[in-house]
């Protein structure tokens, strides 16, 4: 009963925070922008959050977080619109929706696919939010006894999982994590004040700004990569009349939605898995248990609902490790973590105690945001279809302008524009070489925190590295990490023996 009482108190606090007029406005703004960005192929959630990041410096941190989070889960709704009507995923996690969504649209059932997607997304997100509300305080409470060794090993595990599980080339992912941590080292050393890796530049003494890095990695490089590919495909039109799902559609859908939610909630909370894996996984599950698997790929409604439920559930539960442990599982979460750090808030077990209004306000804003998105996506579907028809060639000059001026407006330094430019060039070259980019940002955000925990743990232990193995929790995490590394290298080894030629081509696909 105690737990329930405190939960009700927290919910009330969250509602009070989330329902202030300004926060409702920022939530609406974030969701709408996310929807727009998700619909338009060629700009992802990461690029959008990076672009808007500088403007949140003037805002209250809770409002900033509410808005940027809205962009994040808003893209999941928008992304499926592009998948279904254009056969071109607006976001990676909605790629699966192409498989059955586009055939449905070709059969004139695109409207139904969109409505069911929106409903599935809403139901899944709602369940995932409840899971988050119940589990976060429990996780945070059990993590309150964590000290530096635990945090350090947990971050090592998180980074290794995030960079190796999804990708075909684990070594490339790991190398990018280290590269990211290395970029995080640039600046004054926090213990001694010695400038590191600044090469004599005064501008680099404060370190590389997260805005410049994120914009270079996901803005500039994405624009360069999208110019050639964007704007292909024919948009299928739909009318409002064809949007009412039949009783049969409903009957077929509700179980897949619940299964998708379960799969998504689980994979969303794990580092490295996330919404893309969750949506593929739930599609595979539905196809496996279907009475007639041959319907899949030809417009089966289960093949649209389940993965869309899964990726929206995963989007929400991804906040659990980020908020309660301070360990982001994906690049987007790392960026949101960066937003909090810039505003002087350190996410982790103590955050729920120290900034309850922020945590619960954010969680409650998820309800509001998902309701807004449900309303935005169904009646306004015509508008989104029209957005799909804007040629990309008019968009990328605007994106480039927002990148340059956005990063300039943070400090009024032209140096920062050169910084973004260089990071963009390097990041594009890394993509060409098949390196995944997301682990780099993860490493960059976690790097300085990791170094601090590492040094503190070593000082306390008197320079004995066994401190990471001796303590029960960090020891267990280290064992898990080693098992993970063995598993990943075994898989990579077997694959490289099976097909030396094929492996490299899948690497470049996952990097794209």
């Amino acid at each position, binding site marked *: 009963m105690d737990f329930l009482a405190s939960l009700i108190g927290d919910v009330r606090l969250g509602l009070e925070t989330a329902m202030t007029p300004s926060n409702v406005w920022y939530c609406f703004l974030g969701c709408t922008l996310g929807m727009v960005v998700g619909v338009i192929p060629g700009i992802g959630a990461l690029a959008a959050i990076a672009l808007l990041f500088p403007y949140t410096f003037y805002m209250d941190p809770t409002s900033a977080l509410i808005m940027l989070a809205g962009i994040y889960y808003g893209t999941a709704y928008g992304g499926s619109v592009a998948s279904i009507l254009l056969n071109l995923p607006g976001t990676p996690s909605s790629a699966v929706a192409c498989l059955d969504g586009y055939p449905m649209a070709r059969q004139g059932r695109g409207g139904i696919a969109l409505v069911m997607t929106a409903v599935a997304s809403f139901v899944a997100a709602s369940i995932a939010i409840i899971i988050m509300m119940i589990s976060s305080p429990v996780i945070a409470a059990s993590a309150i006894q964590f000290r530096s060794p635990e945090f350090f090993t947990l971050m090592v595990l998180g980074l290794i999982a995030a960079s190796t599980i999804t990708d075909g080339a684990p070594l490339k992912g790991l190398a990018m994590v280290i590269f990211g941590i290395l970029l995080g*080292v640039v600046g004054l050393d926090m213990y001694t004040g010695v400038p590191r890796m600044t090469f004599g530049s005064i501008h680099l003494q404060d370190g590389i700004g997260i805005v410049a890095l994120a914009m270079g990695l996901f803005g500039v490089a994405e624009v360069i990569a999208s110019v050639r590919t964007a704007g292909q495909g024919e948009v299928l039109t739909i009318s409002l009349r064809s949007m009412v799902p039949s009783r049969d559609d409903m009957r077929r859908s509700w179980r897949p939605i619940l299964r998708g939610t379960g799969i998504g909630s689980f994979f969303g909370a794990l580092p490295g898995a996330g919404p893309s894996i969750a949506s593929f996984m739930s599609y595979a599950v539905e196809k496996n248990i279907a009475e007639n698997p041959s319907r899949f790929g030809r417009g089966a409604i289960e093949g649209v609902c389940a993965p869309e439920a899964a990726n929206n559930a995963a989007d929400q539960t991804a906040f659990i490790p980020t908020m309660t442990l301070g360990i982001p599982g994906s690049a987007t979460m790392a960026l949101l973590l960066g937003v909090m750090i810039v505003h002087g808030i350190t996410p982790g077990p103590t955050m729920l105690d120290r900034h309850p209004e922020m945590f619960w306000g954010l969680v409650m804003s998820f309800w509001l945001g998902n309701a807004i998105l449900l309303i935005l996506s169904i009646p306004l579907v015509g508008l989104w279809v029209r957005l799909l028809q804007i040629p990309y060639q008019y968009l*990328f000059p605007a994106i480039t302008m927002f990148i340059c001026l956005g990063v300039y407006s943070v400090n009024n330094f032209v140096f920062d524009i050169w910084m973004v430019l260089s990071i963009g060039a390097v990041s594009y070259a890394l993509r*060409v070489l098949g390196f995944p980019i997301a682990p780099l940002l993860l490493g960059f955000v976690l790097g300085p925190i990791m170094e601090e925990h590492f040094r503190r743990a070593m000082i306390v232990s008197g320079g004995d590295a066994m401190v990471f193995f001796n303590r029960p929790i960090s020891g267990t995490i280290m064992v898990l990490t080693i098992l993970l590394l063995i598993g990943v290298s075994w898989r990579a080894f077997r694959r490289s023996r099976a097909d030396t030629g094929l492996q490299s081509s899948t690497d470049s696909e996952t990097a794209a």
Partner: protein
Amino acid sequence: MRIRAKQDLIAGLFVLSLGVAVTIYSASVFDIGTPRRMGPGFFPLCLGICMIVFGLPMTVFGARSEPIPMQFDVRPFVAILVSMAIFALVLPQFGLLPATVLLVVISLLAGRLPGRIALLLTTVGVTALAILVFRVGLNTQLAILHWPL
């Protein structure tokens, strides 16, 4: 542009050389300290060694792999980066308006060129947006037009 090359070999050599450079740089320029009292170079040194450890097998396996086609879009790469560079050069000297116009026109060279009217509309639209958002909306300290002479 499509290049056929041993992608993994190049990637491995990149990681390896970066690792060697970081290791040597951290060990020679910074104080390493001891595990108990780490100097500023200790952590970067560990990172450099990690990169060598990851880069070595990448290079070895990469050398044995088959060359694969890699897509490098030279035109958008050059156009976008040059447009940003010009913007960075022009902005402090001549102001927001000329910098944005140049940025839009040069970056448009990245893709298929639009018709004259579309070009004009895009330029005017993006420039107006830049002035509205940054000068009027956010009140960034920027001259719209500035003549240094």
